[in-house]
C-alpha cells in the first residue's frame, strides 16, 4: 500500500485545488506574518555584521561574534542586563502576590453589588495608557506641588526628588505597576476560585471552621495550581520588563538602576544608530527569553497535567 511520491503529490494537488478558497482566505494573514514577523528574523543577521545602513545587509562585512564581545565588555549593557533581572525579581517578590491577595479578598466580600463595583474600579487602570500613568506619577511625585511631597512637607520632612534619585526608581516603577495591573491580574485567580467546589466549604462549616481557616485551608490550596502556573509564566518572562513604561519614567540620573536591556537597545539602536550592537543585544535577550519561556511552558504543562486544574 505504499504510495509513490507522485501519487502523494497528486493527492496534495487535489486537496489544494479542493480548498483553494480557504487558501485564499488564509493568504493575507500568511503574507502578513511572513512580512512583519518572519522577514525581520532574517534581519537578525546584522548582529554578526559590521552593519551600515547605506551598505545594507548584503554588502556589510561579517564580523562573527565581535558585536557580542563588544557588548559583554560594555559596562552599560552588563548593568542593563542585571537591572532587567533585578527589576523582574523584585516584581516577582512584591507585585506577584498582590493579585492573589486581591482575589482572596474579593472572594470574601458578601455584598454582591459592592463587590462588582470594587472589581470594576480596580480593573480600570489596566485600560489606561502608560503615558497617562507616567503623567500621573510625575505629577504625584513632583518636588514642588506633588501630593506626596506636600504630605512630606506637611509632616515636617524635606521633599524627596523621587524621579531623579536612582534608589527611588525601582520602588516607584514597581509600585505604579502594581497600581496599574494587579487588579486586572486578579481575574485569573478569581476564575480559579469560582471553580472551587462549594461542598468543600459546606462540610468545613459543619465542622465549625472559621472564614479565615476556610480561606487558608480550602481556597488557597485549591487555587495553588493556578498560582504555580502564573508563577512559572512570570519566571518565563523574567527578561521582559515593561520598557515602554520605563522609557517614560527614567532619566540619565537614574539610568544606573533603571536602564534595562530593552531601553539600552532603544537608546543605542533607535536614538543612536548602532544598529548592529543593538541587534546583538536584542538577539541575546530574545534567546534567553525563548529558553526561559520554552522551559516554563514545558514545566507548566507537567504541573497542569498532574494537578487538579
Amino acid at each position: 500500500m505504499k504510495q509513490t511520491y507522485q501519487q502523494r503529490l497528486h493527492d496534495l494537488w487535489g486537496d489544494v485545488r479542493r480548498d483553494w478558497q480557504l487558501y485564499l482566505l488564509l493568504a493575507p494573514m500568511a503574507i502578513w506574518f511572513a512580512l512583519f514577523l518572519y522577514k525581520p528574523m532574517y534581519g537578525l543577521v546584522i548582529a554578526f555584521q559590521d552593519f551600515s545602513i547605506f551598505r545594507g545587509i548584503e554588502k556589510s562585512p561579517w564580523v562573527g561574534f565581535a558585536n557580542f564581545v563588544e557588548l559583554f565588555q560594555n559596562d552599560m549593557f552588563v548593568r542593563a542586563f542585571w537591572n532587567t533581572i533585578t527589576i523582574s525579581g523584585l516584581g516577582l517578590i512584591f507585585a506577584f502576590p498582590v493579585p492573589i491577595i486581591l482575589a482572596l479578598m474579593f472572594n470574601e466580600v458578601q455584598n454582591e453589588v459592592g463587590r462588582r463595583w470594587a472589581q470594576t474600579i480596580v480593573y480600570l487602570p489596566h485600560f489606561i495608557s502608560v503615558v497617562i500613568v507616567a503623567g500621573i506619577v510625575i505629577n504625584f511625585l513632583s518636588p514642588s506641588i506633588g501630593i506626596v511631597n506636600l504630605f512630606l512637607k506637611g509632616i515636617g520632612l524635606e521633599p524627596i526628588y523621587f524621579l531623579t534619585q536612582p534608589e527611588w526608581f525601582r520602588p516607584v516603577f514597581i509600585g505604579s505597576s502594581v497600581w496599574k495591573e494587579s487588579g486586572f491580574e486578579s481575574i485569573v485567580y478569581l476564575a480559579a476560585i469560582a471553580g472551587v467546589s462549594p461542598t468543600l466549604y459546606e462540610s468545613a462549616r459543619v465542622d465549625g471552621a472559621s472564614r479565615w481557616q476556610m480561606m487558608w485551608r480550602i481556597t488557597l490550596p485549591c487555587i495553588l495550581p493556578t498560582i504555580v502556573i502564573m508563577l512559572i509564566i512570570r519566571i518565563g518572562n523574567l527578561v521582559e520588563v515593561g520598557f515602554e513604561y520605563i522609557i517614560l519614567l527614567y532619566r540619565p540620573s537614574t539610568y544606573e538602576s533603571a536602564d534595562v536591556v530593552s531601553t539600552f537597545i532603544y537608546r543605542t539602536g533607535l536614538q543612536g544608530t548602532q544598529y548592529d550592537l543593538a541587534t546583538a543585544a536584542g538577539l541575546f535577550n530574545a534567546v534567553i527569553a525563548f529558553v526561559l519561556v520554552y522551559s516554563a511552558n514545558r514545566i507548566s504543562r507537567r504541573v497542569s497535567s498532574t494537578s487538579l486544574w
Partner: protein
Amino acid sequence: MKSFNLYSRGDKIFGWANAILLSLFVLSTLYPFIYVAAVSISSGAAVTAGRVTLWPVDVTLAAYEHVLSDRMFWIAYGNTFIYTFGGTFMSLLIMIPGAYALSRKRLRGRTFFNIAIAFTLWFHAGMIPFFLNMRDLGLLDSRFGIIIGFAASAFNVILLRNFFEAVPKSFEEAAKMDGASELQLLWKVFIPLSKPAIVTVALFCIVSRWNGYFWAMVLLRGEEKIPLQVYLKRVIVDLNSNDEFASSLLTAHYSFETVTSAIMIASIIPVLIIYPYAQKYFTKGILLGGVKE
C-alpha cells in the same frame, strides 16, 4: 442547622477587616483619577500653591479652553481615531479569514501554519530588525505603516481559531448543503456564531491602539501624523523638565499641571465610555484566550 456558626464573632471581624482593607485598595486605585480630574478644573494658581489635594479649588475650565483651542491636540486626537478604527478594521480583516481557514481541520499545511504562528509568541526578532524592516518596506513616517504593521498577533489569531473550531459541525453542514462558498460560510454562519470572540478581539485591538505610543513615536516623524499618546508624551514627559515651557503656560487661570491634567482627562474619557461594555468581554476573553497550541 444551628451548628452552622456562619456569623461567629471572629468571622464578623474578619469580614469587616476584609471590607476595610479592600475599600482602601479601591480608594487608592480611584484617587489618582479623582486628583487629576480635580487639578484639571482648578485654577492654575491654586494648583501651583499646592492647595488642590482632593476637591477642585477655584473651579475654572480655563485649562480645557486652552487645550481645546490647541490645533495640535485636535490633530493628534483625530489621528488616534484613524489609527484605532483603521487599525482594528485591518486587524479583523486579516485575522478573521485567516483564523477561519486554520480552524478547518482538513486544510493541508494547517499544522505548519499553526506552528509558524505560535512560534511568534515565543520568539520575535526584536526592536531593531522590526524597525529596519519597516524602513525597507517604505513604511517609516506613514499612517498606513502604523495601521498595517501591527495588524495581527498570534494571541488574537489563536483566540479566534479556537472559537471557530468550537462551532458545531451541524451548522456548517446545513449551509454546505445549500452550496455555500467558504466566504459565505464564514460570513453567514461562523461570524454570527462567534460574535463574543470577535468583539473580544476587536476590543483588545481598540484598547491597544488607543493606548499605544511607542512605535508611533519611533516610526512617525511628521507632526501632523502623531497620535494622542505621543502628543501627551511630548507635553507631559519631554516638556516637564523644560521649565521655560512650563512657566510659559503659567497664567492666573491655568498652569502646566492643569493643562496636562486636562489633556489626560480628555484622552481617558473615550476609554471610560467603552469600559463598562468592554469589561464584560475582556474578562471572558482573558479566560477563553488561555493559549493552546
